[in-house]
Structures are given as C-alpha cells and as structure tokens.
C-alpha cells in the first residue's frame, strides 16, 4: 500500500516537474542571452570602462552625468521622442485605416494584402537604401516628380539641412516599415468582431462611421494597444534608417545611434552601457504606460 502511494506521488511529482523541465532550455537561453547581459550592463553602467584607459573603475553616476552634459546626446533624446511620437500615431492611424479597407471583400484582396505586408518583410537597411535613392538631392525620384510638376524650382536637399524635416523624412521610412504589422494586428482583431453587432447597429439606424466609432473602435482597443507598443519599441530603437539616411550627423540622430557611436567608435563602453540601460528603462516604462492607458481602459468596454 505504502509502495503504491509512493509510486503515485512519484508520478505526480514527475508530472508537476514536467512543465519546468520543458521550459528549462528556454529559461537557460533567455537567461544567458537577455537577463545576464541586462544585469551585467546595469552593473557596468556605473563603472568607467574603456580599453583606452584600463582597468575598469567604479564611477558612480558619472557616466550618466557625462551623458546628460553632452548636447548631442541630449538632442538625440529629443529626436528619439519625436520619432516615437510620430511613429506610434502614424502607424496606428494608418494601420487602422488599412485594416478597415482590407476587411472589405474586393477583387485581388490577397495580392493587395501581400503588397501591404512587403515593407514589413524587407530589412530596414534595404528600405532605407531605397528611400535614400528617392530622397537623393541630385537624381532622386522625389525631386524629379516635384520638379516635373513645377512644385519646386530646382532640386532640393531633403536630408541633413533642417532638423525637423530630416526627422520627419526619416520617420516616414520607419512608418512605412512598421505600419503593415500594425495593420495586420488590427485587421485580425477587426475580423474577430461578431458581424451581428454591426447588423444590430444597422437596424438601429447607425451609419458606417457610427458603427466604426461605437462598435469597432472600442473593441479594437486591445489590438491598438499592442500595435502601439510594437510601434513604440521599434521607434525608440530606431537605428538603421537614421544611419543609412543621415550618417553620423547629429541633426536627426537617435539615441541608439549615439549608443553605437559612444560604444564602438569612441570606445567608451561605460557610457555605452549607461545609455543602453536608459534606453531599456525608457522602452519598458513607456510600453507599460501605453498598455496601461490603452489596454486596461479597453477591458471594461470589451
């Protein structure tokens, strides 16, 4: 009898352990590639670490003070905030518009859907190179088109001259890439709304706009929250587009580009760690705030 109980307990224990055994490789993988570097980065952010002046020495908050004293890095934070604001708003608004359009049944819908997804599937560097040609001040298609339409008298230099114009044009490339994912997330949510709700609204005399405003939008809020967070994370980490379109110029530079320059060009690893720690914190806090604002408010409505 005792042996039978023991055997059952053993089976139960093994069953209870099974999930842990199954997820352990993932935990080890994430721990080695994410948690350990994050902890190490956090610690090293408080040290002066540079191969040009070894060994590493405890520096307290000096790395952070130096970063905030640097006008180029301060400007890059402002630029990144603008990238994030434009990126989130435009990608969510355009994503919603595209999703609503794609929900309709029309011929070649599958092809249109594939074309919409294409910018998301291409690497950011490739897209930035394509847009670089379009913006080219000497033979770019944008100059050519505007000149042909007599909207500009001579070819214009689009990037690297005016700060906000440069940021806006770089962000267009980013929005071009991240909007398809927002559209797909919102489209998936849109398709899951029961058609009966729209039918009832129509019977009650609601028009398409009212139906969208009072049925679709409230029910889409969780999806919009997810789309907004992905746009926010990608915009806060913008690097490839800035680097390809604007090089190392401080005008339009992003925090991630400054992290790269600080760490790998200037070899100031301590400041690089501090900067990446700040980006990680900003990303986490803003993502949580966005979700809290959009997702949780959506729960009662849902």
């Amino acid at each position: 009898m005792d042996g039978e109980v023991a055997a059952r307990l053993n089976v139960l224990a093994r069953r209870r352990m099974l999930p842990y055994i199954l997820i352990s490789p993932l935990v080890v993988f994430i721990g080695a590639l994410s948690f350990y570097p994050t902890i190490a980065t956090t610690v090293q952010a408080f040290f002066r670490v540079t191969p040009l002046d070894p060994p590493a020495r405890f520096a307290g908050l000096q790395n952070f003070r130096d970063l905030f004293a640097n006008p180029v890095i301060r400007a890059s934070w402002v630029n990144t905030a603008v990238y994030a604001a434009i990126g989130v708003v435009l990608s969510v608004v355009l994503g919603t518009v595209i999703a609503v359009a794609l929900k309709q049944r029309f011929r070649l819908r599958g092809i249109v859907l594939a074309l919409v997804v294409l910018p998301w599937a291409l690497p950011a560097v490739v897209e930035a190179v394509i847009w670089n040609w379009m913006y080219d001040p000497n033979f770019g298609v944008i100059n050519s088109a505007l000149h042909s339409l007599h909207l500009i008298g001579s070819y214009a230099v689009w990037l690297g001259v005016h700060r906000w114009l440069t940021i806006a044009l770089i962000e267009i490339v980013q929005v071009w890439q991240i909007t398809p994912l927002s559209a797909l997330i919102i489209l998936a949510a849109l398709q899951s709304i029961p058609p009966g709700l729209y039918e009832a609204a129509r019977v009650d005399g609601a028009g398409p706009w009212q139906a969208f405003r009072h049925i679709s939008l409230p029910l889409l809020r969780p999806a919009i929250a997810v789309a907004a967070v992905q746009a926010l994370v990608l915009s806060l980490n913008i690097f490839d587009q800035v680097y390809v379109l604007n090089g190392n110029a401080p005008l339009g530079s992003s925090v991630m580009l400054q992290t790269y320059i600080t760490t790998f060009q200037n070899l100031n690893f301590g400041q690089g760690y501090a900067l990446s720690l700040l980006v990680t914190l900003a990303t986490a806090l803003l993502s949580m705030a966005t979700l809290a604002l959009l997702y949780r408010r959506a729960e009662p409505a849902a």
Partner: protein
Amino acid sequence: MRPSRLPGRRALTFTFATALLVSGAACASGGGSGSSGGAQSITVAMHYPSPPKAILNEFQKQTGIKVNWVEIGWDDLQTKIAAAASSNSYFADATDVDWSKVGEYAKTGWFLPMGKWFSASSLKQDMPQLGTFMTHGELVGMPFDASFIVTTVNSKDFQKAGVSGVPSTLSEFSAALNKVRTHGMSSPLDIHFAAAEGLSTCWYQMTAAFGGQVLDSAGNPQFTSASSPGAKALTWMVNAYKSGLVPKGNINIPDYTGFTTEMAKNRVAAVLCDYSGSVGSIYDVPKSSSVVGQVRYVPTPGVSGPGANIANPDGIGIPKAARNPDAAAKFIKWFTSTDNQATWAGLKGPGDVIEGFPLPARLSSLDLLAKSGKLAQASELATLLREHARAPFPEGAPPWYAQFSNAVYTNIHQAAAGQETTQQAVKNIASQASQLKASG
C-alpha cells in the same frame, strides 16, 4: 494583462555585444582556424573581396596554409575588431588595421607588434606609407595598399572652358573652376560634406594644401588661429560649398560610390579629395562612366604651388587573440609581396584583380605596373606617392582619433549646412581636441 518587454532587434544586438564585452565570452570563430594533421588554416577578415581562389590555392600549395577569407563591410569590421579584442576573443588571424586606428591599437594592445616578422627599416624605402602604421617605433600593421588623397580633373571640361595647363595653386584652381561654371556646369567641384570620415580626411588634405597640419606631434591643435592653415582650409571649403561651387547635394552623400558617381556622370569637373586609383577603377570603366579617358590626376593645388597628398592607406595586422600568428605573418608577407601587390592592381589581367583595390603599397609594384602599361597614369601616381604623399599625423594617429574625427566632420558639416559659423566650428573642434588630449 501584464505588459511584456519587447526589445527591438537593435537593442538585442547591443545587449548581445554588451554580453560579449562584459563577460569575455568566446565569439563564434567563424572560420575554424587551427591546425589539424599538419595542415594549418587561418581566417583573414577584410573589407575587400577575396583574391582569386586559384591564387589562394597556390599559396596553400606553397605553404600548407589554408586561407579562409571573410569579407565584412568596413564599419562592421571595426565593430567586430573592438568587440572581439575587448573580450579577448578569437575573431581572425589577420584583419584590417586602418591608418586611423594605429594609435588606438598601440594603446590598447589589440594587435601583435609586427617587428618579430617584418623589418620596418628594410621595407620603408619600398613602402613609403609604412610610417603611417608605426607608432613609438612599433609596427602595428603592414600597409597592403597605397591609398592617398588626390585631386582629379576632367581635362575635357577644363579645355572646353578655356583653361590651359594644370592649375597648381588654389587661386588658379578656383579661377579655373569659375571658368567651367560660366560654360554651363553650375557646381563643378566635388568635395565631401556629409558627416563622415571622408570630410575629416578632406580637411586634413586641404590643411596640408594650405601648408600646415591639424595636430602637432604632441597632439595639440594647430588650427585655433584664424590665420592658421587649418582654419583657412576649413573656411575655404565651407565657402566653396556656400558659394555653389560644390553641388548642394554633397551635404548628404556619405558613401564613396555616391561621391565618385558625380564625376563619373560628368556632373562635376574636379574632385578635390579623390582616391588614388579612381581613374582606373571608376572613371575609365565604360559601363559605369561617361567620362572615359577624360579624367586625370593632377598635383594637389596649394597656396603657392603643389601641396601634399594625405595618405590614408589600409593595413593588415595580427590580432592578439589570433590562433595562428606565425601562419598569419606568412600570409601577410605573401599578400604584400611585390608581385602580388602588382597582381591585385591588374598586372596579370582583370581576372586576378581584387575589386576596388586602389594602388599597390610598394613602389616596386607600381614600377612593374608602369612598365606593363596596365595601370592608368601609373607613373604620375608613383611620383605623387614618392614625392607628395604624407601621413596626416606624422607621429601616428592619436589613440583618441575616432572622437576627434567625429568632432571634425560633425562641425564642418554643420558649418556648411549653416547650423554654425566657421569660427564656431574651429573653436568646437579645437576644444574637443584639447579635452581628448588632456584625458589621454
């Protein structure tokens, strides 16, 4: 629902790189270098395409060393070198030593001194740019090309505009360009103005043309006074841009290809900071150029006569974590030999050329090319290399060069874009140089 953290790809890349730096974890070897059963193999990581496989096989037959050549873009390569060396990880047995990194590598000890395998004194005469890779008497890398900054002009455009002879001073050069302007080419001069290394190098070149240098041997800025060659050069460059002599678009053309395309497509008539080798490898190539046979190297116009040409050669060295340093040294000796240097530049025909290879590092190789007639204007280039090419920093680039260069190109770019005055640009660069020097 609890929000999840979704780090971006770039953030993950940085985190991973950080992990490597902090922990000293081994990088992926990527090449499997080592020796097994008597056969040795080495990994060579460069930003140039590989030499033809048949020639590498020949090297393997001669020495028993198998070469695994990995081509990586210049920027990525510098990042990999820094990440691997900081974590003391193996990355390659031989890799790029850029002229601008010599001081940094000497200070960090990331590369093995080459004195064990190469005698600088015996090589110096044949390799005029060897000094660029020496600091405090130590050879950090071996030059494998002789890239230096040159001036090129489209002689057909100049003749059409009525310019006779070669302008040898900056005032003659400006007058010639203004004549070209009156003959229909509105912005005939190509100069880098994007915030990139090419702009810094061009300023060193122009400073040399004005008869000076940017830093003295102790690293002190030499351009703080308005009458200094450095300040004059900066003002001259910015004025050339603002007056429309330089195409407006140059403010944002960061890459070499975009830059040289202007000349190749005949949208400009002169390039002030061009690369040695551009005529043969770009302007005289019919499929990509509309100025074949028209572009010539000319001595750099200076204040009162031809000025110097700033050398920016590429070198090859052995990282401290190399697994097979002796085999790597054998390879470097072979790779930089007189015959092979001439081969990479086209002595044995286009099939054996390394694509984009500017010029051989050895004068003896240039002589071979000049005799064979296989390199455009080889004798002019040999003269420029022998008599005018000089290192931008005679004592070797300082360890803080990357930050200095960043300040240089950022401020000149901003001055040209109208975001600051030339005086402010000079002041900012000087202030950064002084700070960097003070912090060592």
